[in-house]
């Protein structure tokens, strides 16, 4: 192994914000160049000294943010008796997490698994489709002059201000005359439109895809579709992932649309299923399944939180693109 490769590898793997453990000057090797640089620069307005009081105050917001999630994790380990007898932010004597998960997945002939699969279907078809439409539409708005372009944009942006619920009743009536209610289509089709996603892709494509590059491709005789797939799409990737993330969270968390469109529990997404269990637990004579609601809630957020954390750096670019435009 030669040294350049190892230093590059270790520098890449070491987190950038890792100050050297001791205040002593690190040994003068290439590897610690980063930390020496961090240490040697005096604190200026651009590189201020971290402040303990500020961290503590912001820490209050952090505690407020994480407290309900901690409560959920702790209480997913309790059975019904544990829920009633033990302190809410600490574990009961015995841990029932595994038992709870098994019961959640098997209760009522495994209806929870069915809801999970429905949710996955709605997310893959709905969010996937929404992303495709937004990318194609945004690219067209940014890079092609066509009659009606400005009108399309104005109407779509105007539509953002229309409350989704104002559309719900007429959409429901329209879909029921078409015979679409109570089918997956009733949830998937409305999910295909993301005005925010279109706007984001339009802003992103305008900046990320140089028009000269498209012109050069045309002169080289590349067709429009081929130019899009081979040249524009790779450049649009970061924006595409951002739109996909927003659409995924929106469809995974959707409640109002399926609530209106779906009456058959077999087609419920997870959100409606949890709501139905909660309704059952609150009615007199219904089986109180609070332990299942809590464990089911945890199982509902785990996948989306994992995706969120894995792809969290992409949120930034999308929201930045949305906010810098004056």
């Amino acid at each position, binding site marked *: 192994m030669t040294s350049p490769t190892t230093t590059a590898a270790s520098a890449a793997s070491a987190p950038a914000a890792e100050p050297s453990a001791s205040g002593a000057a690190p040994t003068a090797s290439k590897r610690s160049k980063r930390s020496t640089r961090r240490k040697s620069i005096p604190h200026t*307005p651009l*590189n201020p000294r*971290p402040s303990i009081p*500020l*961290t503590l*105050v*912001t820490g209050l*917001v*952090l505690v407020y*943010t*994480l407290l*309900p*999630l901690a*409560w959920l994790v702790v209480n997913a380990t309790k059975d019904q008796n544990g829920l*009633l007898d033990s302190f*809410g*932010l600490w574990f009961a004597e015995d841990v029932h997490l595994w038992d709870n998960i098994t019961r959640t997945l098997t209760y009522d002939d495994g209806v929870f698994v069915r809801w999970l699969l429905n949710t996955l279907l709605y997310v893959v078809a709905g969010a996937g489709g929404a992303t*495709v*439409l937004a990318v*194609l*539409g945004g690219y*067209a*708005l940014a890079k*092609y*002059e*066509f009659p009606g*372009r400005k009108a399309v944009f104005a109407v779509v942006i105007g*539509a953002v*201000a*229309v*409350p989704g*619920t*104002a*559309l*719900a*009743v*007429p*959409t429901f*009536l329209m879909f029921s005359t078409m015979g679409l209610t109570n089918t997956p289509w009733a949830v998937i089709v409305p999910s295909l*439109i993301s005005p925010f996603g*279109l706007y984001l892709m339009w802003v992103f494509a305008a900046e990320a895809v140089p028009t000269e*590059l498209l012109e050069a491709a045309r002169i080289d*005789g*590349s067709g429009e579709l081929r130019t899009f797939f081979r*040249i524009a799409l790779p450049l649009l990737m970061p924006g595409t992932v951002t739109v996909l993330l927003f659409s995924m969270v929106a469809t*995974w*968390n959707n*409640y109002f649309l399926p*609530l209106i469109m779906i009456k058959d529990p077999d087609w419920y997404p*997870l959100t*409606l299923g*949890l*709501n139905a269990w*909660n309704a059952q637990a609150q009615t007199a004579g219904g089986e109180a399944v609070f332990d299942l609601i*809590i464990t089911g809630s945890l199982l509902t*957020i785990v996948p989306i939180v994992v*995706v969120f954390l894995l792809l*969290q750096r992409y949120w930034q670019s999308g*929201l930045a693109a949305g906010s810098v435009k*004056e």
Partner: protein
Amino acid sequence: MTLLSTRATAAPPPRPRVRIRLRKEALVGWGFAGPFVAVFGLVFLAPIGYALYLSLFKDRLIGGTSFVGLDNYGEALADPRFWDGLIRVGLFLLVQVPIMLGIALLVALAVDSGRLYGRTFFRVSIFLPYAVPAVVASLIWGFMYGTRFGLVGNINDTFGVTLPDPLSPSLVLASIGNIVTWEFVGYNMLIFYSALKVVPRSLYEAAAIDGAGEWRVVTSVKLPAIRSALVIATIFSIIGSFQLFNEPSILQKLAPNAITSDFTPNLYTYSLSFSGQQHNYAATVAIVMGVITAIIAYAVQLRGMRKG
């Protein structure tokens, strides 16, 4: 650049005349935008048109459906149940939105200032609730508010006190405000933080050289620089407040006496349509609500974008 390798094997065609080029470009542009526009027409424009159409008719038990002109609108504007809900979300908006945006702005400034230990951890964690479905957020908080196995019950038992019930009719609106704040503080924080990130750092250096303290930099440099982000976040929050539905709808099961079927205009629309089968009147209330939302959002935008 990979351009050279993607060169087509056929000889490049002679450059067409400009008019033909333009027509072709229009076709291709519509080809790309077409799918979005078609589905948009189906799920946005058609329902809006249909709602307008529905709002002009009435379904009577005797005589069936008949055209009534603007009667439904008159009825909606004189409907105390509609006004109750509207005033409630108006109050919610005036209290909850400033609190939420204020906290979001403070956290964004703190993260951006570079004076936090573990800033990435702060940024990601505080944004995390955005990924939690409204159903789950409402259930968690709803249980925590409860006296049976919630935190409120724990505190009462431990200290022998009786805290006011967060799910009582007088407090339930504030409790909903807390849930919405928890869900969206991080989202708004990220909007502000993203805007702060693109402010040229040289401005801060210049301000420091001019002797501006940290607060002065915030008020005179940072806030004006992220003005448009502040306006956008305010507009989104206003629209969200007027559309308040998910949280009260889910808490309804936990607090049936506190949350009535006309608690917010959206709950009212929902119950009119799906419990009462009054589709025409429900469509009218929804349109009135949409118009009010659009007017207020537009007014905020004009006010916010005015250079003043």
